[in-house]
Structures are given as structure tokens and as C-alpha cells.
């Protein structure tokens, strides 16, 4: 085991994939300078493990600020023998390339009757919670869940970031990796060597009997804090991290709800048509008879992200809001109220 940060784990997965397969390349804005810290051992060019030194400019490619051609060219390269990883920096920059994502990346395999294969990964960071305001703070994975053809990973730990990313790079379908900036510094023991975590298999973060709590991305950490607090109140919470939203492990959630009879979903995305909405619908359709209480969603409300930290911090699902929702579905009053 090695202690790794979330960012370090992403870097390790990329390095192992680059070493294993010469068809893997990385392209994006500022990747040569390792601005975000996923392209090598450290920020200094002299540091051991610097990607540019290890792989050269043929495989580590700084791009112009041209998201549309970055995404489309990665798709075209994937169709013709490369396995590109595209670093798109911020998740809001994905919108610049929406036509390529939707009309080309997602549809090419289908539209051309299976002739096209697209082994390509699009990485982007969700910078919410850091006072970067409305143009940098979105959590846009639900928009892409709505478009068949794209696989979506939302790792919430260093181990998952490393294992899922490696699976994504080895996969012949296009994958979008949404990485939460709030988790960049999170550290844990990660198993040594190469490993892969399959898509569509949820992680039971914590076992419990009273309520199923599905938590996504940075909401997982908040869910753990909430569950610890609720344990002291005598409420046993089972936390499920789906890890990938497409494919989604509905069996894991349905099996858990069958035991607990209650469901709360903590999702940092906007409320309307969010991941939480879809998970609610799946459970309402397939496990209605198991439910002892209405399903509750803890999401970011349908608003844009304001700059002021005084406003922003109140908007995302946090341990307190999640705990309140759990108390509601178990009809328990908050302690001290």
C-alpha cells in the first residue's frame, strides 16, 4: 500500500497506462507544464516522473484553447488507432465542445453501425466550492447522462480514481471522468501496482439497516460525516457510492432499499433532471413496495453558483443537510432541537 492523493492517483493511472500502451497519448491545455499536477511526480520539470520528459511531445501534447477541435480530434484519433486521454481542465469548458461530444463522440459507434470504436477518455475537474463563480463551478454530469453513448465516472476516493481511470483508458467506449476539485488533496492508502475497478459496480461505503444513502462524488465524504452523527442518534445508515453513473449499478441500490425501506440521495449536481432524479425514478419504479417513506433528494438547488463564499457554501449538499433528510425519512427530530 502507498499513501496517495486523489490527484496523485490520477497521475499514477495515467503513467501506468502510458507505459503499458504506446497508443495512449495525453492532450490538453497546459499539460506539458503539469499545471494541475496529474502529469508527473511534481510541479518541477526536474522532478523524477515528469511526463513530458518520460514520453516526449509526440505523446504529451499541449493544445491551443480550442475545445471543439480537441474533443473532435481525440474522437477521430480514437477511431483510427490511438487511445487519447483529453485533459479539459474545468468541466464548464466541456460546453465549448458540445457538438463534438453529442453529435460525434456519443453517436459515431451507433450511427455507423458499429464500424467506429472510440477508446477515448475526457477528464475534467469540477471546481465547485472554491469561489470561482458561475463560469467555473458547474457539476454537469447529468447533462451527459441524458445522452446515450457516453460512459460517466465520478470517483470519490484516490483508490476509485486510479482504478476507474485505468479501466476507462483500457475501454473501447468514450468515457467522461468528472473529478471533484474538493477531493484533489484527499489521501488514503492505495494498493500497489496496476489495478482496475469495473464500471457499473457500486461501492458500499458503509453498511447500515435503517436508510440507504446514495452519495455522489464529493457528497460521499459529507455522507460519511452525516452517518457518523446519525449513528450517535441511533440511526443506522448504509452509504452507497455508485462510482459510475453510466453504467449505473441499480441492483446495488435496489437491494439495499429492499432491506432498509428508505432512500436519500446526495448529489452535488443541480436538482432538475439530476443524477438524484434518475436514481429516485429507478427506485420508485422498481422498488415502490419496499418504501416506508418518500424518497428524498439532497442536491444543489436550481440556481447558478454565486461568487461570494457566504452564499456558495450554503448551496451544496453538506453533512448537516444530508443528516436532516435522513431524519425526515426516519421521522426523527434533530438532536438538541
Amino acid at each position: 500500500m502507498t499513501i496517495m492523493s486523489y490527484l496523485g492517483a490520477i497521475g499514477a493511472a495515467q503513467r501506468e497506462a502510458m507505459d503499458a500502451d504506446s497508443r495512449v497519448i495525453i492532450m490538453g491545455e497546459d499539460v506539458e507544464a503539469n499545471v494541475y499536477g496529474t502529469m508527473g511526480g511534481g510541479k518541477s520539470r526536474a522532478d523524477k516522473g515528469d511526463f513530458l520528459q518520460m514520453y516526449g511531445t509526440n505523446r504529451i501534447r499541449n493544445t491551443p484553447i480550442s475545445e471543439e477541435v480537441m474533443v473532435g480530434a481525440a474522437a477521430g484519433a480514437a477511431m483510427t488507432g490511438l487511445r487519447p486521454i483529453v485533459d479539459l481542465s474545468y468541466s464548464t469548458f466541456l460546453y465549448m465542445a458540445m457538438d463534438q461530444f453529442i453529435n460525434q463522440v456519443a453517436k459515431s459507434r451507433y450511427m455507423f453501425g458499429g464500424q467506429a470504436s472510440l477508446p477515448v477518455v475526457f477528464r475534467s475537474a469540477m471546481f465547485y466550492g472554491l469561489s470561482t463563480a458561475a463560469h467555473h463551478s458547474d457539476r454537469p454530469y447529468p447533462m451527459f447522462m441524458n445522452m446515450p453513448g457516453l460512459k460517466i465516472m465520478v470517483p470519490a476516493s484516490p483508490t476509485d480514481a486510479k482504478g476507474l481511470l485505468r479501466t476507462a483508458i483500457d475501454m473501447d467506449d468514450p468515457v467522461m471522468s468528472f473529478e471533484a476539485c474538493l477531493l484533489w488533496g484527499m489521501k488514503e492508502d492505495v494498493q500497489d501496482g496496476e489495478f482496475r475497478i469495473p464500471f457499473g459496480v457500486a461501492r458500499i461505503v458503509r453498511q447500515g439497516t435503517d436508510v440507504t444513502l446514495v452519495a455522489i462524488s464529493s457528497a460521499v465524504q459529507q455522507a460519511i460525516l452525516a452517518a457518523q452523527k446519525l449513528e450517535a442518534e441511533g440511526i443506522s445508515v448504509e452509504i452507497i457510492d455508485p462510482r459510475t453513473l453510466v453504467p449505473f449499478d441499480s441492483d446495488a441500490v435496489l437491494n439495499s432499499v429492499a432491506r432498509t425501506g428508505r432512500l436519500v440521495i446526495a448529489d452535488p449536481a443541480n436538482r432538475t433532471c439530476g443524477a438524484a432524479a434518475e436514481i429516485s425514478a429507478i427506485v420508485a419504479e422498481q422498488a415502490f413496495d419496499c418504501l416506508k417513506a418518500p424518497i428524498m433528494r439532497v442536491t444543489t438547488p436550481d440556481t447558478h453558483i454565486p461568487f461570494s463564499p457566504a452564499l456558495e457554501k450554503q448551496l451544496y449538499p453538506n453533512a448537516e443537510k444530508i443528516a436532516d433528510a435522513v431524519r425526515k425519512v426516519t421521522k426523527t427530530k434533530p438532536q438538541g432541537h
Partner: protein
Amino acid sequence: MTIPNDLLLEMQRRMLRIRYFDERASKMVKRGEIPGTVHTSIGQEAQVVGATMALGDGDYMTGNHRSHGHPIGKGAALGPLMAELVGKAWGVCQGKGGSMHLADFKVGSLGESGIVGSSIPIATGAALSSKVLGNGKVSLAFFGDGAANQGCLYEAMNLSSVWKLPIVFLCENNQYALSTPAHTVTAGVLANRAAGFDMPGVRVEDGQSVLTVYDAVRTAVDRARAGQGPSFVEVVTYRFNEHSEGLRLAVDYRDADQKAAWLKRDPIKLFRAHMLEQGVADEATLAGLEAEVMAEVDASVQFANDSPYPELSVAFKDIYTEAIGAAQ
């Protein structure tokens, strides 16, 4: 450059394939045998074939909604293309693409795009593959005068130029984006825009001459293959039919005299006369070629008729490598 006679005859063969295929498709649209929208390349055959024949068999190509000519020009078999147009199981895309999304990866046809300009980045990526893998393949992106005002073209031209990618940007300037005359929405001469990206830009004024187009594109392809980077070739041509088959507009947006002048410059008739005059082939050879191609098109329709329609399960296939989510 001297072109051997068999290559000249092959150019005529491919132009005839496009012409007869599209004329048949047009009839089939009118008879209700082809659903959806069809855009023919009738009148633009020299521009298409001059470009595709300048490519090698292993080279890549992407195109647009005016889509049948490109794969035919690149050497695709007609039967699966026709079966695709009628939405049948034996279609080249199993009936899921239709007229606007033909693709035949076997001949390097990476797909026609229904979104104007959207396939240009794809061709750029294929050129990136060739560069990284060092396999000597060249890409060519077909797009129209309408797409020439899409931003992604300029992102692709810039990226290709700084990375010296082996790609040819081929602008099929048929002078109208549906009903909109190019000069009313386009500043300056398109080919001149190439200079801003530090790449050669040529304008072929006579896009009805297959040899003129071939020469210009061949120069660009050779340059790309030699590692010298991208080129931009603008070919001025004219579509003989309406924007799409069956489209009836109240306004006649094309000048009648101009139209009559262009219709006189039928690229297939021009090249036929040229070959007779130059002694490349005699009348009997050319008539035989025409009969052969007509028989090929007849056979493609027969192939399409013989094909079954796709099973419903095909609608849920190839969304991903394996089945997930769909058809629940």
C-alpha cells in the same frame, strides 16, 4: 503530371457511379422508396472524384450531408450504400445512419456528418493518429462553403498547422448554403484564409474539370505525406439539383443565366469529350463503361431490395461496446 489511361478511366467510372447512383436515388425519393432527406452530388462529381482519387486506398476521409459521392469516390461498394439509403439491414451502417451518415471504414470513409462542419475535427484527429503512429496516412476533410463559416474549421486549421498534421481541407464551394449565396455571408476569398494559418491555400476555379481538381489535391496530398503539414483547397463547383431532393422553394435564389451556364459544364460530359479527343478511349469503350456502371447501380438496387429490414434489437445495439441501459 502524367496520369495513366487506366486511372483516367477509373475517374470516369467513379464519376459515373456517383451520377447514376444519385439519379436513381432521386427517383426513389420521388417514388417514396427512400425515406428522409437526400442531397445529391450531381454536377459536383469532378470535384469529389478529383479529390478522392488523389488519396491512397489507406487514406482517411470525412464528409457532410451531401454524402453519397464521397464514399463512392473513395471506392465503396454500391450495394451496401443503397441498402443504407432505404434503411435495410444490409446497409453499410445496418440501416442506422441513412443517407446523411454513410461511412465505410473499409475504404477509409470515417463518416459523413449531418451537422455542417462537425466532421472536420474528426478528420483532424485521424491525421493526428497518422502523425503519432508514423504510418504515412493522409486525411481529407470535405466541407461546403456553408461550413467554411463554422468556428471548428479554424480551430482545426490552426491545430493542424502547429502540429504539421497530414490533412487536406477540401472546401466544396457550390456557391450556396441551401438558398444563401456564399458571397452574401462570406468575407473575402475562402482560399485566402489559409494564409492566416501558415498553410498553402489554392482556389480551383474550374471544379468541373476532374483533372484540374486532381492536380491541386494531389499536390496537397503529396505535401501532407511528405510531412510538410496541411493545405487548403477550395474548389468552385455547382450542384445541378435542388439542395435536397423534393425541396420546393417559392423563391428562385439562383440566377437563371448563371445556372444555364453551369449546367452546360457537366463534368462527366466534359471528361468524356476530353478522353475521346486525347485518344484515351474510344466511343465503344466509354459506352461500355457507362453500361457497366448502370448495371452496377441496378445491382445495388436489387441488393437493397433483397435485404431484410433490421430487427428491433438493432436499435439498441452499438450504443456501447456492450449492451447497457437501453431497451429496459
